[in-house]
């Protein structure tokens, strides 16, 4: 009985110590620089850069409204995260705006559409309806590119990577800079994906 009590005592102490260690490690970390960042804040920064490497047809970005609109469908938590990173940032003279749209039909005026992985159900339909329309579509699901999307995020070993469907972008009259193509994990040209790098 004594021995078993002792063992229990030790194991509880170990557990408590481990918990304390977790807390201390956590506390000491707050002061330091971050080693991991929030996924959607980083993705927002990616979207910001994508806008710099994509050329929209001349009539889309007109002089009257020089802003760039990133739209996100019905996804309030994502909007908050994207907005906190890129709202009001400028690319040249163009101001970045994040807009939440409730319905796919409200796409009017959007330059970039971000479909998070929640949108799997409507994704195929939305992408089909955007065919030929100069909106840069960025998504996350595994079949995003085969559904006709243009840039797809994926996570490899905790780091964000992206694939590009150049064919889809070109058929919507968007020009993607070769620098972006070089950084992509794979680029689909004419229905065939090349593995990059």
């Amino acid at each position, binding site marked *: 009985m004594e021995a*078993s*009590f002792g*063992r*229990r005592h030790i*194991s*509880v102490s*170990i*557990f*408590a110590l*481990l*918990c304390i260690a*977790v*807390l201390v*490690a*956590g*506390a000491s*970390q*707050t002061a*330091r620089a*971050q*080693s*991991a*960042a*929030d*996924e*959607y*804040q*980083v993705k927002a*920064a*990616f979207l910001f*850069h994508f806008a710099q490497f994509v050329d929209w047809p001349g009539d889309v970005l007109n002089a009257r409204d020089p802003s760039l609109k990133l739209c996100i469908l*019905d996804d*309030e*938590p994502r909007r908050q995260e994207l907005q*906190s*990173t890129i709202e009001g940032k400028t690319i040249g003279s163009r101001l970045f705006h994040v807009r939440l749209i*409730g319905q796919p039909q409200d796409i009017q005026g959007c330059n970039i559409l971000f479909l998070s*992985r*929640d949108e799997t159900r409507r994704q*195929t*339909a*939305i992408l*089909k*309806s955007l065919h030929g329309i100069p909106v840069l579509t960025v998504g996350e699901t*595994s*079949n995003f590119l*085969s559904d006709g999307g243009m840039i797809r995020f*994926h*996570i490899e*070993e*905790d*780091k*964000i*990577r992206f694939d590009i469907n150049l064919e889809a972008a070109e058929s919507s009259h968007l020009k993607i800079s070769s620098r972006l193509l070089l*950084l992509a994990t*794979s680029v689909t040209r004419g*229905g*065939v*994906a090349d*593995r990059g790098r």
Partner: protein
Amino acid sequence: MQVHPARCSFFSKLPYLSDVPSGSPQVIRRVPIFAGIVLLALFGSPSGAAQTPDLTQKSLEDLMSIEVTSVSKKEQKTSQAATAVFVISQEDIRHSGALNIPDLLRMVPGLDVAQIDDGKWAISARGFNGQYSYNLLVLIDGRTVYTPIFAGVFWDSQNVPLDSIERIEVIRGPGAAVWGSNAVNGVINIITKSADNTQGGSLTAGAGNASTGPEAIRYGGKDRNLGAYRVYAEGFQYNALPTLAGLDGQDDWRLVHGGFRTDSTLSAKDSLTTEGDVYQGNAGELSSVPISLAPPETATVALRDRYSGWNLLTRWKRTFSPRSETSLQVYFDRSLRGDSTYDIGLNTFDIDFQHHIVWGARQDIVWGLGYRVSSDATIPTLRISFTPQNRRTQLFSSFVQDEIVIRPDRLNLSLGARVEHNAYTGFDFQPSGRLVWTPNNKNMFWGAVSVADRIPSRIDTSIRVNYAALPGPGNLPILVSFFGNPNEKNERLTAFEAGYRNAWTSRFSLDSTVFYNRYRDLVSVEPGAMSLETNPAPAHLLIPTSFGNGLYGETQGLEFFANWKVASFWTVSPGYAFLSMHLHPFAGSQDTTTVPGTQGGNPDHQGQLRSSVSLPRNIRWNASAYFVNRLPAASIPSYTRLDTSLIWRAGEHVSVSVTGQNLLRNLHPEFSGPSCTVQSGLMRRDAYAKIAWSF
């Protein structure tokens, strides 16, 4: 080989089989300690996160080297589901350091995962746990791995390389209207990555004080005709555990398996997925079995389950229009399994069609048809035989589910029903209704009423197990046997569930569920009249028992789970589950042991606290503590299990992990039937390291 341990409580009547020592009540005192630590971790932590730097100032190359974490993954799809669902993401899998699927499932709040010996687990949700938890449906990429012979899952032969898993969806509560019968208390859906996401090669090697492996190799590429593909092979071995009775359990477990998956786009409208696996392995156990009708009649012997099999699945998806898509899935699965006391082969062919259609502005409909044929062949032994020896059963099914928007973005109603016809009990109707109310973006309430059936298996209807032989009066041996019941009925559940989820901030989310379940026609074990039997010779007294549907009951409980991102590098996830079971015999039932055996075989309280910290230099530290209250029927004391792992990403291509399991206490049992024939193993303190290299 253990036959229906969930029900073997009946055999506790036989004193010579109850060699399990009686429980020690001392451990109950751990509950407050555990709770205290949970509170400490929750409230004693530093608050506030470091200021986020302006990420847009970084170059794309810099952004690509940032490690990201996502608490919100689980809040997404799942936040809209009117069901108690938990998703284990690939990130969770990578950070857990777990080597097999059952160990991964421990993180699911409300799931009871208890290891019996090296290769055997009892896994269930909301009660009725046992080696074959016959109320839980498990699927791998749409292929059912619930065996229609034993009614349950052989976890020792169902393994998927963990780095190929995209996610595991665990639904607690009934899912029969969509997933089919036997999805009574839950569904586990293991979904592997598309071959597009496993391009390139990877090599994995591991070793520990009690295990070798997994040694794994995987390669993925793209082919003009085939599309994206991957091939893999994996092998591992676990050393034997000591048993509760202090013997060497001889339960060492090994498995070698390999397979492939291809994902190709046939046209703008069509995509095709094909995958296949082949496996072979064996696992031992110490079991008490009748060996002859002459003394010594019953002995504890080492048995070795040998199993092998292969399966091939193909799924064709076609998008007719943005509002209509179909999927056709066909698979074949062959499995062979046996030790010296049984031998069974099973072929399953399954074809499943689904059509998803958006109808008008408010209705989203999925309907489908399915057909499954299973043929088995068994070889009778002194211990286990089936009548008929071989059998082919067919299952026809159809279902429809309609999700109706009552008020856009606020109120959704989902109605579903499944009609099935099975070989044992004929037609079967399993409806379900679910309502989701989203008053605003941060709060979501749901409620559901559903019906689910567990249909009889081969064991329920046609097995004979000569459970024990013993010396009787006047040199007449006694054989204790139990028999399947060809007239067994479905066990039927009517479930009432309600849940609340919220995401107060992007850093904190909460998921809670309450349920009240009513079961009827639960399987009981009914004694029969003693008789004289001459075959097998010599003549002996037969004490028969057989299955009946003599029980009914109610269970209720609550499950709670939170995810708190304390800082950008640190996530803490507490969870708690409460379960109370009340079973009763119908008038006329003579079963007196199943009720206490089942009620006392499931923990009433389970708690967990998981922490994941991202440290500098690409190191991640995960720690998980699990508290499981005692199982009175099996005299298993309560325990707290602590698992921890350190994962270091050493450069772009190499990752190294070190994991410790059961750190608090060496050699403790997690599960045992009150007097099941398999000797339960004692879980040992384990440490292992794994290195993975991708190229």
